[in-house]
């Protein structure tokens, strides 16, 4: 390994600038795009209309939570008004809080509490409906807990000390205390965890993954260049076969990529408040291994390096579109389940460990390694 590392260092010495540029590109572009989005998002919030068919403490609470969401501009209006504004694209989407909302919450029913209406250019429909679902879930959960407590005291025939309302209030109080605790713990790192719901429309790791995909492919052009160069035939008379040379070099590139991956994790955790867990790190390492093997097998199958560049850009663009992390295609991958199960970036974007491409590519690489080479007389 040391010998090969030394040969690679000689080559890197001539390509320092390019190497550093492509290694840093995913980090720099992720930060730029996130910054761009958060400034435009700050100026132009997503307009969302709310139609109230009844007004109680519960609907007030829902409204308050939505108004606190930084990316949304919430307006209360009548149903006709909402439909009209949707038609002329003044609203992104509208949500009708139907009559009987409070009653259904109190019964613990979560069905058909709200009707969502969206324009065909809707951007905020999914984050808003997700936020609403979360609030409703919280409320019905509380009611359920209160109901259970009452039920229990009935069963054990003890005199009911608390009314339903008291229990709900108590649970809110406890929650508040817990929230306070959480805030004081996370005070130094983030303001977002308390009060303001920072529902971000883009996942930084999604952007990062796509540019990493591109930079990994492009940085593996060495394999095409060296395989096609005149020095290739010298490997018949060296200690290392070209295959061994290529594999060891890929491991060297893997190490360098991992170094920059850990730099990315650190920067994203510190500056973008991205949570990190062991599963996430494993998922990222698996993604990296998969990317390296993909670049390796692709580079091996190309003769013309410029064709390979064009192919790499095209493939990255396809990845970007189908992953939904840069172009929000309204959850395309989830609708078309084949894409979602075969998309090489999907496991990583959902904090899972992807095996499909990893195993497939490992088999291809092992098959290639076992095969006889071109400049290798077969006695």
């Amino acid at each position, binding site marked *: 390994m040391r010998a090969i590392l030394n*040969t690679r260092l*000689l080559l890197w010495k001539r390509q320092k600038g390019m190497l550093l540029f492509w290694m840093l590109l995913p980090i720099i572009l992720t930060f730029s795009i996130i910054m761009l989005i958060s400034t435009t998002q700050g100026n132009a919030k997503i307009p969302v209309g709310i139609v109230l068919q009844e007004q109680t403490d519960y609907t007030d609470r829902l409204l308050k939570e939505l108004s606190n969401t930084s990316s949304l501009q919430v307006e209360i209006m009548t149903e006709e008004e909402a439909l009209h504004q949707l038609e002329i694209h003044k609203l992104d989407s509208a949500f009708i809080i139907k009559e009987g909302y409070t009653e259904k919450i109190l019964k613990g029913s979560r069905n058909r509490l709200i009707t969502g209406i969206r324009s065909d250019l809707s951007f905020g429909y999914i984050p808003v409906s997700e936020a609403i679902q979360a609030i409703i879930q919280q409320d019905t959960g509380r009611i359920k807990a209160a109901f259970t407590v009452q039920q229990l005291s009935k069963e054990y025939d003890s005199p009911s000390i608390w009314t339903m309302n008291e229990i709900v209030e108590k649970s809110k109080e406890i929650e508040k205390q817990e929230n306070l605790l959480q805030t004081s713990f996370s005070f130094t790192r983030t303001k977002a965890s308390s009060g303001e719901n920072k529902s971000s429309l883009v996942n930084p790791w999604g952007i990062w993954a796509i540019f990493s995909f591109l930079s990994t492919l492009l940085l593996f052009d060495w394999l095409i260049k060296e395989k096609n160069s005149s020095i290739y035939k*010298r*490997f018949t008379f*060296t200690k290392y076969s070209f295959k061994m*040379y290529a594999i060891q070099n890929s491991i060297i590139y893997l190490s360098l990529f991992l170094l920059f991956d850990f730099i990315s994790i650190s920067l994203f955790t510190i500056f973008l408040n991205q949570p990190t867990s062991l599963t996430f790190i494993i998922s990222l390492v698996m993604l990296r291994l998969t990317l390296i093997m993909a670049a390796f097998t692709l580079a091996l199958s190309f003769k013309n390096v410029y064709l390979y560049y064009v192919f790499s850009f095209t493939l990255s663009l396809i990845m970007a579109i189908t992953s939904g992390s840069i172009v929000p295609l309204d959850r395309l991958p989830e609708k078309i389940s084949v894409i979602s199960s075969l998309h090489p970036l999907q496991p990583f974007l959902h904090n899972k460990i992807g095996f499909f491409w990893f195993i497939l590519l490992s088999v291809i690489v092992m098959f290639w390694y076992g095969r006889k080479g071109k400049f290798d*007389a077969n006695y």
Partner: protein
Amino acid sequence: MLTIDSLSKSYGKKQILNNISLSIEKGEIIGLVGENGAGKSTLIQLLATIDKPTSGSIILGESNYARHKKEIRKQIGFVPQELALWEEFTVKENMLFFEKLSWIRKSTGELKQLCLDMSLDKWDEPVHTLSGGMKRKLNLAISLIHDPPLLLLDEPTVGIDLKSRKEIGNYLQLQAKEHGKIVIYISHDMDEITSLCDRVVCIGEDPFYEEILAKTGTELIVF
């Protein structure tokens, strides 16, 4: 000693080499001549283990090519017909790069000396700025980093100046006579062949080569 025994090679139905037998002693320089397409490069490639004969055997020292390919390769210095080096590297970087990949370790001083031995003194200059003769010398020097006892050269001096040609010739002569290496050498330059080689092998009967070599008294073997 290199022993070639009833060696034949065909590509499909086309027979290129027919029943070649030859014994070469340590310290001998053998010239390979013949028309274009006669099969000179084919024979060199068989001797370099890059290609496999249709029939016949090759034995280097005690080792049979068919059984000890890996061991044989360590003993071969193969100089390809085209330049096989990093154009953007300096001479030094080229030598260091291939030394790392080589079976044996050599110090930077030893590598530099190897270049100086064939009058390649542009140690720190990028290869793409060098003359054709200098590049040919480096092409040869890289192939000799691991001190191989068998040197196989496919037109190593094609298209270069007379001075470089002479310097390469002198170096090969020194390697054969002082260090007992076997040198097998393809060239179209009859002056070079006659002055350098102990014996000449002509692939294919060719009255032209036979006449010239008869005049100079060089021993000629025709296949």
